[in-house]
C-alpha cells in the first residue's frame, strides 16, 4: 500500500467514528471531555455550534453516532453519546453572551425561509450573523416544525424546545407565523435574493382503500395529524381500546400518547416481523414498558363497524419469506383472520412530501414521485434562487439530518448571494496538537474505564401515564454523567506516527492491548489485512500505513478499528515515533465566513 495521506482531513476524521457518523459532524469526544471536566456550558456550545438544538437532540436524536461508536466494538454497548448531550444542556449556565452578535447594518440581502422546522431555523442561525435579513414563514403558531407538532412532550418538554427555538428567532429573524404559504410564485415575486424551502414531509399515509375505512371515519385518524392535534391541544382524549397501525417511531409516539389520553388497551399492530420494524430499539422498549403489546406479522384486511360505530379491525396473519437475494415477501400462514377490538385506530404507516403550493412553471423540476430535484451537496434546486433542506429535500429523515442539510444550504445561499460558485465548498477547520505533558502524562484521561453503559433513569410509570407533558426520562445526574463520559475512548486523540524516528524495537506492537500495530513487509490492502497481529475484519475501518522503514525495509501498519486511544504505544516508544495528538475537525458553517474558527 501507499503510505497513508494523513494530511487529508478526512483520514483522521474517519477515525472519530461518532463524529464521522453524525450528519452534522458534531465533535463528540470534545464535548464529552468538557462534560467530564464539568464545563457544561462549553460542552453545550460545542454542540450548539454543530447541531443547533443540543437540548432537543440530547433527548430525541436518532443517534446514528451510537451504532458507529468504537466502544461498542470492544465493549457490550457504545457510549451514551446522545444522553450525555442532555447532561450538557441540563447543567449549562447562561449562554446569551456566547450567542452570535447580529451586525447593526445588514448586508442588504433578503432571504425567505418557508417552514420553521429545524432545517429552516439552522439556515436562519447561520445566515443572520452575516447580516442577512431573514423572513421565516410557518402556518403553525410557533417555530420548531415537527419537533413541536410531532415529538410528544413526554419525550421533549416544550420549555426545552422553546428555549432553543427562541435563541435563533431572537437573532433578529422576521417571523411570519400562522401564515400558510400557498404560492411560491408570490414569494419569489416579493424580490427575495434566495428562498429556502424547509416545509418537511407533512402528509401522513392513509389506508383509504381498505374496506370499512369510510364508515369508520369518525374514529380513524392519520397518526401525524392526530399527534399535531394533541400537541396543539385540539384533541384531549381517545377511546379505551386503541389500535396503532405501523412499526416506525411515529407509531411508537402514537401508542404512548394514546396511553396518556385514556387508552387502556393500546396495541401496536405491524405487518413486518418485530425485528424488522423501523422503530429504534429503545422506542420499542419504551412502548413495551408502558404495557403496549406489539403484534407483528399482521396485515390489515378491513375496518369493522357496527351501526356506524367502529368496532375493530381484521388482520391476516403472515410470516416473512426471503428469496435468494434476501428480498422479503409476507406470505399468509393460512390461519383464520384475527379480529382485534378497537374504539379508535391510528394509522401511522409513513409520511410523504406534498408540494401543492409550488407552481410547476417556476423552473423547479419534479420527478415522477413529485419530488423536487435537489443537488444533494449544495441543496440548490433547478431554479438557482430556490434551495431545499430537511425532510422537504430528500424525504423524511430526522432532526439532525435536517440541521446538517440546513448548514449546507446556508453555505450555498451565502455563496450564491455573493455570486460565487457553489461547487467550491469551504474546507473544514482542522487542528492537530500533541497531548504530551510529560512521562506517563497526557492532557486527556487516557485510562480506559471498565464501566458498563449507564441506564438513564425514568420517572415512575404511574406518574408519567397520567400526564402527557411529564417527561419520562430524567437524564443522568452529574456524577453518572461523569462516569458515562469517562467511557469515551477519546477517538479524536490520534496516534500519529513519524517513521524516520522508529528504530523498530517492537515495543508499541507488544504493548498495544488490542493488537492494532504490526510491522511487516508491505503488500496490497487485501493481503496486508490477512497478515496483521489480529484479524482485520471491518474493512470500513482504515489501515494507517507508514512509509518504508529504514532499518528493515518493512512498514508499520496500524488497523484503526479497535484502537483504544490509550496512548500506551506512545508511552512505550523510546523515540517518540508515536505521539498522541488531538485532532479537531469542524465543518465550516456559513457564519464562519472564510473558514476561521
Amino acid at each position: 500500500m501507499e503510505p497513508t495521506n494523513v494530511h487529508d482531513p478526512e483520514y483522521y476524521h474517519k477515525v472519530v467514528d461518532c463524529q464521522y457518523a453524525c450528519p452534522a459532524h458534531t465533535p463528540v469526544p470534545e464535548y464529552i471531555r468538557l462534560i467530564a471536566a464539568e464545563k457544561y456550558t462549553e460542552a453545550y456550545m460545542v454542540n450548539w455550534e454543530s447541531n443547533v438544538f443540543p437540548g432537543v437532540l440530547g433527548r430525541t436524536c436518532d443517534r446514528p453516532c451510537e451504532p458507529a461508536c468504537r466502544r461498542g466494538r470492544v465493549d457490550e454497548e457504545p457510549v451514551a453519546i446522545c444522553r450525555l448531550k442532555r447532561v450538557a444542556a441540563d447543567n449549562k449556565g447562561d449562554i446569551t453572551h456566547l450567542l452570535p452578535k447580529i451586525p447593526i447594518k445588514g448586508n442588504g440581502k433578503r432571504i425567505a425561509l418557508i417552514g420553521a422546522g429545524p432545517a429552516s431555523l439552522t439556515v436562519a442561525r447561520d445566515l443572520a450573523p452575516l447580516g442577512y435579513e431573514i423572513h421565516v414563514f410557518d402556518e403553525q403558531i410557533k417555530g420548531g416544525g415537527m419537533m413541536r407538532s410531532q415529538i410528544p412532550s413526554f419525550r421533549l418538554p416544550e420549555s426545552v424546545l422553546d428555549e432553543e427555538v427562541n435563541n435563533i428567532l431572537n437573532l433578529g429573524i422576521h417571523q411570519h407565523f400562522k401564515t400558510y404559504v400557498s404560492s411560491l410564485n408570490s414569494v419569489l415575486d416579493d424580490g427575495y435574493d434566495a428562498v429556502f424551502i424547509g416545509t418537511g414531509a407533512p402528509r401522513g399515509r392513509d389506508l383509504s382503500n381498505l374496506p370499512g375505512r369510510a364508515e369508520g371515519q369518525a374514529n380513524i385518524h392519520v397518526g401525524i395529524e392526530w399527534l399535531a392535534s394533541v400537541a396543539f391541544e385540539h384533541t384531549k382524549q381517545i377511546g379505551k381500546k386503541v389500535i396503532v397501525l405501523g412499526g416506525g417511531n411515529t407509531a411508537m409516539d402514537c401508542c404512548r400518547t394514546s396511553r396518556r389520553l385514556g387508552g387502556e388497551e393500546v396495541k401496536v399492530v405491524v405487518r413486518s416481523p418485530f425485528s424488522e420494524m423501523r422503530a429504534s430499539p429503545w422506542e420499542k422498549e419504551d412502548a413495551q414498558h408502558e404495557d403496549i403489546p406489539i403484534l407483528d406479522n399482521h396485515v390489515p384486511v378491513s375496518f369493522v363497524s357496527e351501526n356506524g360505530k367502529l368496532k375493530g379491525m381484521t388482520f391476516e396473519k403472515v410470516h416473512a419469506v426471503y428469496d435468494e437475494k434476501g428480498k422479503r415477501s409476507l406470505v399468509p400462514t393460512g390461519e383464520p383472520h384475527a379480529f382485534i377490538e378497537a374504539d379508535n385506530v391510528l394509522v401511522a404507516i409513513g409520511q410523504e412530501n406534498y408540494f401543492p403550493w409550488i407552481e410547476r412553471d417556476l423552473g423547479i423540476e419534479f420527478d415522477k414521485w413529485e419530488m423536487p430535484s435537489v443537488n444533494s451537496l449544495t441543496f440548490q434546486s433547478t431554479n438557482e434562487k430556490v434551495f431545499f433542506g430537511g425532510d422537504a429535500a430528500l424525504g423524511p429523515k430526522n432532526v439532525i439530518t435536517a440541521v446538517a442539510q440546513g448548514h449546507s444550504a446556508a453555505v450555498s445561499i451565502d455563496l450564491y448571494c455573493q455570486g460565487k460558485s457553489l461547487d467550491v465548498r469551504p474546507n473544514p477547520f482542522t487542528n492537530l496538537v500533541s497531548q504530551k505533558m510529560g512521562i506517563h502524562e497526557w492532557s486527556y484521561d487516557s485510562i480506559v474505564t471498565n464501566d458498563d453503559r449507564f441506564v438513564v433513569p425514568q420517572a415512575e410509570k404511574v406518574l408519567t401515564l397520567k400526564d402527557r407533558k411529564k417527561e419520562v426520562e430524567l437524564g443522568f445526574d452529574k456524577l453518572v454523567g461523569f462516569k458515562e463520559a469517562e467511557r469515551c475512548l477519546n477517538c479524536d486523540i490520534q496516534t500519529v506516527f513519524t517513521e524516520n524516528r522508529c528504530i523498530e524495537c517492537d515495543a508499541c506492537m507488544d504493548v498495544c492491548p488490542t493488537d492494532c500495530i504490526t510491522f511487516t513487509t508491505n503488500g496490497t490492502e487485501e493481503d496486508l489485512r490477512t497478515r496483521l497481529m489480529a484479524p482485520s475484519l471491518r474493512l470500513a475501518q482504515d489501515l494507517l500505513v507508514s512509509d518504508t522503514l529504514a532499518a528493515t525495509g518493512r512498514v508499520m501498519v496500524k488497523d484503526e478499528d479497535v484502537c483504544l486511544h490509550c496512548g500506551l504505544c506512545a508511552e512505550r516508544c523510546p523515540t517518540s515515533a508515536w505521539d498522541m495528538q488531538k485532532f479537531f475537525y469542524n465543518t465550516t458553517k456559513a457564519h464562519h465566513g472564510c473558514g476561521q474558527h
Partner: protein
Amino acid sequence: MTYVRPTFRHPDLPKNNINFTKKDYEGALSTLCAGCGHDSISGAIAQACFELSVEPHRIAKLSGIGCSSKTPAYFLGNSHGFNTVHGRMPSVATGAYLANRDLLYFGVSGDGDSASIGMGQFVHAIRRNLNMVYLVMNNGCYGLTKGQDSATADNGSKSKAGSVNPFNAIDLVGLSMELGATFVARSFSGDKAQLIPLIKAAIKHPGFAFIDVISPCVTFNNNVGSTKSYDYVREHIEATSTVDFVPIMEEITADYEDGKEITLHDGSALQLQKLHQGWNPEDKLSAMIALQNAKDKGEILTGLVYIDPNTNALHDVLQTTQTPLNILKEDILCPGIDALEALNESLR
C-alpha cells in the same frame, strides 16, 4: 500518572487448542525502559506458549537478578515463577526439576547473571542436561546497575560514556556447545519471525535448550560504536537458515529443496530453509565451523546452530521416579524398615 493497561482486548482474538487467547499468557505491564529488547522477547515467549497451547499452570518461570531476570513478571502471569538471587537460577531450576519433572521449566537470565556471577552455575546446568529452556537476554551490559560492560561485551565495543572494552567476550553459544548442550540457538529481539519458532522448538526439546538472544539495551548500550545496538546488530546479522516450527499432525506444505526438516522428539518438526553454506544443524563440527567463520567475518550468526533431538535429560540419566515428589504417596516415599534393611544389606 496514566500508565495503566486497559482490560479490553481485540474482539476477534483467535483461541488456541485449549480455548485460551493471548490474553491468558500476558503478564503485568512492563516497567523496563521503553524500547528495551527484553520486552520484545517477553512478547515472543508469551506468543510461543500461546501457539503451542501450553497450559499456563504447567509452566515454571525461573530467573536470577537483572532487568532480564525481572521479565518473568511481564509474561505468563498465570504461571509459576521463582526469582532467585543473582546467578543462582540454575540451582533452583535443578532442585525444582528434580522434585517435579512434570512442569515445563523456562529459565530467563541475563548476560551478567549467566556469564559473570552465575557462570559456575550455568555450566553445570548444561553439564547435567536439565530438561529446560534457558534463555539469555544478552545486552552486553549490566542493565539494572546502569550499564557496566558485561562478560559478553565484544572486545572493542564502545560504551555510552565512550570507553572501549579491552576484554574478549565470552560466547555463550560456543560455550554451551562445548559443554554438550543438545539444542543451541541464537536470535535477536528484533526478529520475532525467527525467535518464536526457536522458542517453540526449545520448549519441545527434551533436554537443555539454550537460546542466546541479543537484546539491545536502549538506555545504556544502544549508542554508536556498541556492537549490541539495534543498528549494529541489524547490519551484521546473518542467519543459518529461516526457521519454521511445524506442530505435530500438521502437513508440511512448503517444498524445501535448499532446506532441511528436523523431526523433534514429540513428532513436531523444524523446517529450515536457505541453509547456510556447509552447515548442518545436526553436525556439531559444521556448526562450530560456521560459528567461527561468522566470528572471523564480524558477522552475528543467528538461527538454530546445533541440535541433537535425541537426548537423555537428567531424570533419564538418574532413572528417577516418573512421579513428581509432591504426589508420591507416603508408602512409596517411606517404604518401611524392611526396605531400609535390604538397602543397607546391599551396601555391605
